[in-house]
């Protein structure tokens, strides 16, 4: 568990990126899980987890005030767990994806609580804000940023600390072949991506034909290999 502190710092930074700062999408699972894998010593396993999750994340775009999973800290947890368990490959990608999805769900809930907390802080400073206090505006912004960083660090540390022993025991008892496990996991993930693509892009005229054309091309590339 020596990796817990650096991972929680990484999870903090990536969790902060989801909403607060700087929203450069370093919090996407493709990035987060890969970097976490590199931290633990197996970038390739981290990338496999990240790519599978990226398919799922296409369905959860951060529109307005909607509730969505918090992928930043969660991808660090899942990528690191899968990479740390890579010595027993059967089940590691599946367990990494599962750990990320569970953490992302809880993370989404913590984001809602953070927004409630920010509103409470803003209410306390309402008088000062109405009088144009520079200190109140800057203070609220810094308090919000700090709270989010602490939230994401704690989430990463607690989730990794709780899930890692369960994941290790699960992988030790895993009975399906490595490739079957990956096929089931990425097959299910691809369904979310395809359904999301259909939903997101269908409003653009002709987009479904572009999707069908792209799909044919993708299958053709696979057939020619």
């Amino acid at each position, binding site marked *: 568990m020596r990796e817990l502190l650096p991972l929680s710092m990484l999870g903090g930074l990536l969790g902060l990126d989801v909403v607060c700062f700087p929203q450069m999408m370093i919090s996407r699972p493709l990035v987060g899980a890969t970097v976490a*894998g590199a931290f633990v010593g197996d970038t390739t396993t981290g990338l496999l987890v990240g790519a599978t999750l990226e398919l799922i994340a296409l369905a959860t775009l951060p529109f307005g005030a909607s509730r969505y999973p918090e992928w930043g800290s969660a991808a660090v947890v899942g990528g690191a767990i899968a990479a740390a368990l890579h010595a027993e490959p059967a089940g590691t990608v599946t367990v990494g994806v599962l750990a990320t999805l569970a953490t992302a769900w809880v993370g989404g809930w913590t984001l809602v609580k953070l927004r409630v907390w*920010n509103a409470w802080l803003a209410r306390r400073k309402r008088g000062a804000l109405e009088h144009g206090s520079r200190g109140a505006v800057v203070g609220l912004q810094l308090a919000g940023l700090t709270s989010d960083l602490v939230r994401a660090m704690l989430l990463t540390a607690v989730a990794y600390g709780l899930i890692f022993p369960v994941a290790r025991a699960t992988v030790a008892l895993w009975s399906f072949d490595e490739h079957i496990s990956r096929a*089931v996991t990425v097959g299910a993930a691809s*369904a979310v991506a395809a359904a999301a693509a259909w939903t997101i892009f269908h409003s653009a005229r002709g987009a479904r034909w*572009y999707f069908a*054309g*792209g799909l044919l091309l993708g299958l053709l590339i696979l057939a020619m290999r």
Partner: protein
Amino acid sequence: MTWVSIFIRTLAIQGSWNYETLLGNGVGFALEPALRQLPGGVRSDAFKAAMARESAYFNAHPYLTSVAIGALAKAELSGVPPERIERFRTALCGPLGSVGDRLVWAGLLPFSSLVALIAFGIGARPLAVVAIFLVMYNAGHLGLRIWGLRVGWTRGLAVAGALANPMLRNGPAYIARAAAAVAGIAIPLTVARVVGPSRLLLDGALILGAVIAFGLVRVHGRVEGWKLVLVLIALFALVSVAR
């Protein structure tokens, strides 16, 4: 130096996002370096009145809020009457929100992500996959923020015309079509690399994906795909451990 400071602050514009004032405090925070230049500086009544005005409720897409920041800085420093600034601020929320959502969340983000997945699918190394995504996405992201600040500052309260820019008006539809085509290519290639060399397993994964996707489209809005997948994968793990 003021613009660098404002730009960096716009990156943290959602730092205190909450369900009551939404982006409001962030707008005040980002504008504060510009408002310091009001006559009398930070202790003046003009500064305090402007800070109070600019920290009130505001809602828009976070990246395109830079358009509002530039225009509001110009308006405040030019001495535009407060009532006019408040009306302008309210009027900007809707357009900046809807254009940003379509252009960035439903366009640039999935497009960049899918292009990176194609790179992954054709065997690119981890660093290349991550770099392709981050460079492509942030070229658009940072470019949009810088453009927003510039156009807002240049046009001031007449900035609404800039939102009729062909890129903003037609861009989302073009990006959506491109992203749809890229999605079609990326999905099977990604599945193939994760599954590995077995043709049979690849076919099985693609069929499984197609069946579940068909079901998800049919029940659109009633079931969230990622939650369904969480349950399915958890069941699969349970079977693998228990059998």
